[in-house]
Structure formats: C-alpha cells, structure tokens
C-alpha cells in the first residue's frame, strides 16, 4: 500500500470547521467550479503546490494544474482562483 504510514489530506479537512480555506473561498468568488465533481481534486492539487511553492510562476502553475481534468469550466476560472488564493495565502503567511 503506497500511502501506508503517511498522512493523507482530503478536501474534507481543508476548511477550518465551517470557515473556508482561502482556496475554497477563491474558487467560490471566481466561479472556479460548475458541476463541482473535479473541484476536490483541483483544490488539493493547488493547496499542495501553493504550500510548497508560494511564488510559483504562471507557466509552472499551469503545468501542475494540467495534471487534472475539468470538463465544465475550460480552466479559465480555476487558474484565476488559484492565482487569487496564492496571493491571499502569501498575505496570511506574513
């Protein structure tokens, strides 16, 4: 089992109780989801990369986000939301 003995974070643990994580908030404000099926995957992908690389560039971010598929949004607002969340997360980290 690959994840044996490892911590696993899922979307259910992303918010602080009922208070949305900045990424969740940014997806909400930027219309980063339609049907919502791919959303947990994109949220967890993005939170991982933004925590590891808060200053990630646009091209690099697109490259990372291209590992997940979305069929509704055309990715436009997903990228926008992750960018907005990155700024907010950096602000909070200060």
């Amino acid at each position, binding site marked *: 089992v690959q994840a044996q003995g490892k911590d696993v974070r*899922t*979307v*259910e643990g*992303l*918010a602080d109780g009922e208070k*949305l994580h900045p990424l*969740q908030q940014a*997806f*909400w*404000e930027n*219309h980063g*989801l*339609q*049907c*919502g*099926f*791919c*959303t*947990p995957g994109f*949220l967890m992908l993005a939170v991982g990369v933004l925590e590891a690389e808060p200053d990630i560039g646009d091209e690099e971010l*697109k*490259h990372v*986000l*291209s*590992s*997940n*598929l*979305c*069929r*509704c*949004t*055309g*990715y*436009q*607002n*997903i*990228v926008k939301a992750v960018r907005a969340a990155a700024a907010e997360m950096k602000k909070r980290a200060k």
Partner: protein
Amino acid sequence: VKYIGASPKRLEDRTLLLGRGQFAADLKAPGQLHMRVCRSSVSHGKILGIDTGEARRHPGVVAVWTYEDVKHVPPIGIRLTKVGGLEPYQQTNLAKDYVRYVGDPVAVVFAEDPYAAEDAAELVRLEVDELPAKVSPLDAPEAALIEKSYGDLAAAFAGAHAVVELEVAIGRHTGVPMETRGALADFDPASGILTMRGAAKVPHYNRDQVARMLDLPGDMVHLIQGHVGGGFGVRGELYPEDVLVCQAALRLKRPVKWVEDRFEHLLAANHSRDQVHRLRAAVDARGFVLGLEAEIYTDQGGYIRTHGVTVSDLACAMLPGPYVIPAYRARAHVRLTNKTPCGTYRAPGRYESTFARERLMDAIAARLKLDPIEVRRVNLIPPERMPFDRGTDTLGTHVVFDSGNYALLLQKLLKKIDYESLKDELQRRRKSGEKVGFGLAMFVEKSGLGPADKAVITLHADGTVEIVTGAASLGQGIETVMAQICAEELDLPIERMRVVHGRTDRIDHGSGAFASRVTVMTGCAVQAAAQALKEKLKTEKPPVSAEGWFRATHMNYPYGVHAAVVRVDEATSGIVVERFMVACDIGRAVNPMLVEGQLSGGAVQGIGGALLEEFLYDEAGQPLATTFADYLMPTCAEVPRIEVLLTEDAPSPLNPLGVKGAGEGGINAAGAAIAAAVDAALGRPGAVARLPITPRRLHRITLSQTTEGKP
C-alpha cells in the same frame, strides 16, 4: 436592488467546495447489491450462447441475467423526434441474438460487493459467431433519411456565377462528463414506491418511461437527482443500465447500485458528431449564396437510442445558419454501423453543420478571391428581416429566428480585437517565417425549447423561500439563476432561497435540462410564480404558495462569432491556439459571470473537438480510444485565455425576461474558427476538411503541400 444582471456567488458552491457533494457513487442504501455489466468485446456477431454458470457460482453473487431474464421489458423509447419507423433499431436492455458494438451489454451480475460483481462478470462466457463490421457511414445500412428544403434550387443553380463544392467531416466525439454514470434503485414494499437516485437531465420523462417499461403506475416511481458531475447531452438520458437497476430492485427486493468505470463510459454512453457533409453551393459574383444543397451522412452506431435521429435532423434544420440562402435542400442519411450508439453532445448538429457551412464560406471566398469576412457580410440576414423564417423545422417546432443583429455582433468583435492591427501583426509574423493565422466563424444557436414549465414558490413563515421546479441541474448553476429571477420579483436576498430541481416526487410536471432551455423556460415559470406569489401576499400572510407556468411554441435563437489565432509548428505538426474569442448575444444575461463560464467551458470543449478528441475504430470495429490516454481532452496547458464578448443587443421577444440560452454558443463554431485559422497559418485555403486536426492529419496536409510543390 437589481438581481437580474448581477453576478452573485453561486448558492450551489459551499457544499461542493467542502467536499460534501452527493454524486452517484456517494449513494448508499442498507443491504445494497452491486450491478456489473458484461459487455461484448466483439463489434458484430450472432450470439451462440452465454454461459453464466461459473459467474453464478462465484462467492457473493446473487443473480446473473441475460436477455431471457429481461425480455418482457420493452426497449427504451425515443423522445424528441417526429421521424417514425425507427423502432426496429432500438436497443434491448440486454443484447438479443446479436451484438452490434464493442460494449453492447450481454449480461448483468448482481453481487454483495462491487469486487465480487466485477470478478464474476469476467467469468461470463459469451460465444459469438463474428460477422463483418460496418465502420463507415458511407457504406452502411440506412435507418432513416431526413429531408428539408425550401426555395427554388434549380433556378439558383441555373443563374449561378460559380458553383462551389466541398466535402468535410467531423470526428466522433462525446461529452465525457467528469462523473461517469451511476444509479441506485430501491423498492419500498410498504409504500410500493420504486425510487431511482442518480437521475439527471430529464427525470420526469425518464420516470414515465421506467414506469411504462416496468408496468408500474407513474406515481409509484420516483426519480431523484443528487449532485451531477456534468451532462453535456450524454448524462441523464435513459440507458439500459438505468432500467436494469430498477428492474433488479423490484425483482431481487434489495437496493441495487451501479457505477460504471471510465472504460465502460467511453464504450457505452452515447457518442456523437461523426458526420460527413457534402455541400454544393450556387453563388453570385459577390459570393452571395443563391442556393445550397447538402448531403449529410451520420455514423449513428449500432442502435437508435433515446434521441432518435435528432442530431441529423438538427444538422439539416440549422445548416443555413445566419445567412439568407434563398434556396436550400438538405438530405441526412442516418446510417447504422458497429460502433457505440449516438445521441446528442452540446450543440448537437450545430458544431457539425457550422463547421461545414463556415468551411463553405471560406471556400467561396477563396474561389472568388474575396475576403472571407466580406463574403459573410454579404450573406448575413439583415436585422430588418427579423423575425426570420428559416424555412425548416426541428424538434417539433418551426425554425423562426426571433431576433438578432448578426452584422453588428461581427462588427463589435472585430473592434474588440482590433482586427486591423491584429491582421498587420500576423502579416509581420508570417513574413518573419512564423506559421500563424486568424480564422473566424459565425453561427446561430437555438435555445428555450418548450412546450411548458411549471414552478411553485412558497414563502415560509420564517422568511425563507422555496422554489420548486421541474428542471434539472448538471452543474450549470440553475439554483443561483432561479433564485436571482425570483429575487428580482420578491426583492428578497437569494441566500434565503432554496431551489428544488430534479425530483419527480416534489412536482408533477417537469421538462428537465437540455437544449439550453432552463433559464428561458424554467426561469420564466419561476418569474410567473413569483409574480403570482407577490399578488397573493397583498392579502395573505406566510406561509403562502403560488404556482406559475410558462409555455412556448417556438424556440429562440442566440447567435455568435468565434475567432481564433493559431500557430502551426511544421516540424512537430503541432497546433497552438494562441487566442480564442467568443462573441455571443443571448438577449439578456441573468448572471453574466455564469454565462461567461458557460461560454468559456464550451469553447474549450470545442477546441478539444477541433484538435484532440476522437473515437477511432479499426476495420474490425474495435475501438481505439477507450481511456483518457487515447481520447485526449484539453487540459489547462492546451487552452489560451478565452476572450468573451457578451452582448444583449437582441432580447428575445418570445419571453417576458427577454432571455435566450447560453449553454451551447461557446462550443458551436469552435471547430470552424480553428480550421479557418489553421488554413490561414498554412497559407492554404481549404487545407482543413476534417476535424480533429490531429498532428497526423496536419502532417499529411503539410506533406501533400511539399510534394505538390515539386515538379
């Protein structure tokens, strides 16, 4: 406060963002069984025998069914088409005597857990006498011939300055929602009610079908939708698997759950597109089309499913698009092959016919050495001719364009992108050796299909508002939009509103969500109910309920322009879409943010269909695209920023809100615009005659250019 025209955050989102969505796979019922479908691995053959013995003996297996067990259940009916005579081609719920495509269900296994069901399904032995496969619509048997015509075609050709002919083809695509299909059926002996969860798109219609097929009274069957992970025309049609879980819940007296995997989805859910268009146009010296003749060949696959021949019908009805074209005849040949059966996919019949028509416009321009945009201008229906009788019919309605100023939208788009300087810039880049090009395509969409929608709104004593609709959600944001329309009338915040949809147990009438109809039809029913409620509140105290209806005998017609800038890399035969623009007029946008979301999402699907997506088959009818490694869809790395120009110049006179649908304008002309841009980049008008323009096809195009150039 104005709610219509504002872009509030969606009511739907919190639950989904918190990971609390309830999709089909999340459904559970105590004691549930799991269904697994055994599918044919042969594309065409006579069934000699199905040995289920070993599967039955597998631990955990409760039952294994073949056609013999379901033969008393009639096939799923055909909706939305007037074309008759299709019954012989319907699909039985499990294959009878013959298999007709790879993926055709031949048996089902019911077991205590999904693993046992899947393992046992592999033990079912199907013995088939293989027959030759039909894999091209050009030499396959014809299930239906559709013909639509108007005007004097002979006179048009007799007086022609030139005749332009063209053959183009559009690949086999489908919607591919991120959530695969799934359902949970449960029969309650106490009430006698059969409930199927996991419904989508058209729950009321499907409720009636399930009741008819299983011989139950309509009010003893409930279809209920939870969250639905995308639809695009594919999800929520009634499929054999839906009927099988319902039948099993009744007969096995336990809840039955079914969730397909992606491999099954790509084999079993409806395919779409896959048409060949042969066009012949009589034109005058300005490029004005005097008459147009079209022969269309649709690769329908192995059976006729719920959509009948709707896609081909729509292609014939909508092919003339935004142009005057005074004489027209289209004939669509719906041909049966040994491939997955077809249904609709976002902008069905229009993605295809727009590609053909707009390729024709470019071909006319090339032939007469005119500017492609100028040729379009010459042909556009002028605003003073609105409403414009298109002279065709489809979906039981006469096609009459209700409103529109096509030339104005074209002008606005060219201004927005600063077309003159863009042209200069591309010219400069081409001179320096880059293969870049600009292409543009125009279209008319259709939306707001009737006949009727109902809504019931209740203002509760605690100040909350419940809006019960017969619509369905596929993720498009209908809760927010219905709440905005209601809020506009009642002047209450949308956060106080709860929108019910996709539940046959909550409202007796519903038409669901397809054909870009919800904002128009359900939206106007909600407006009517809210107005009735406001009236009642003058004399009554909450809780107060009111009902509203909206009826329509005609569809309405959004329209738009797509434009693309592409760069071709001849060394790799790769195509980069540098810019993509969608201009669309939908009369009135209830929520511009959601409309832009629809248009952008559609555009990216359209780019996928233009460059990447295709179900190919070999000569034996074996599918070559059965995973996401073969059926390529755009990721965020392949798509540019989608530049959207949303206009409200032509409100629909057919409904009190003035709205038209926004679901399909984003995808409609994407293939056509990209093809034109690739032509321009290569400097070879008419080079692209087939979608998708895969690297292999582009390579072939550039190769033919090199050899042509040599003595």
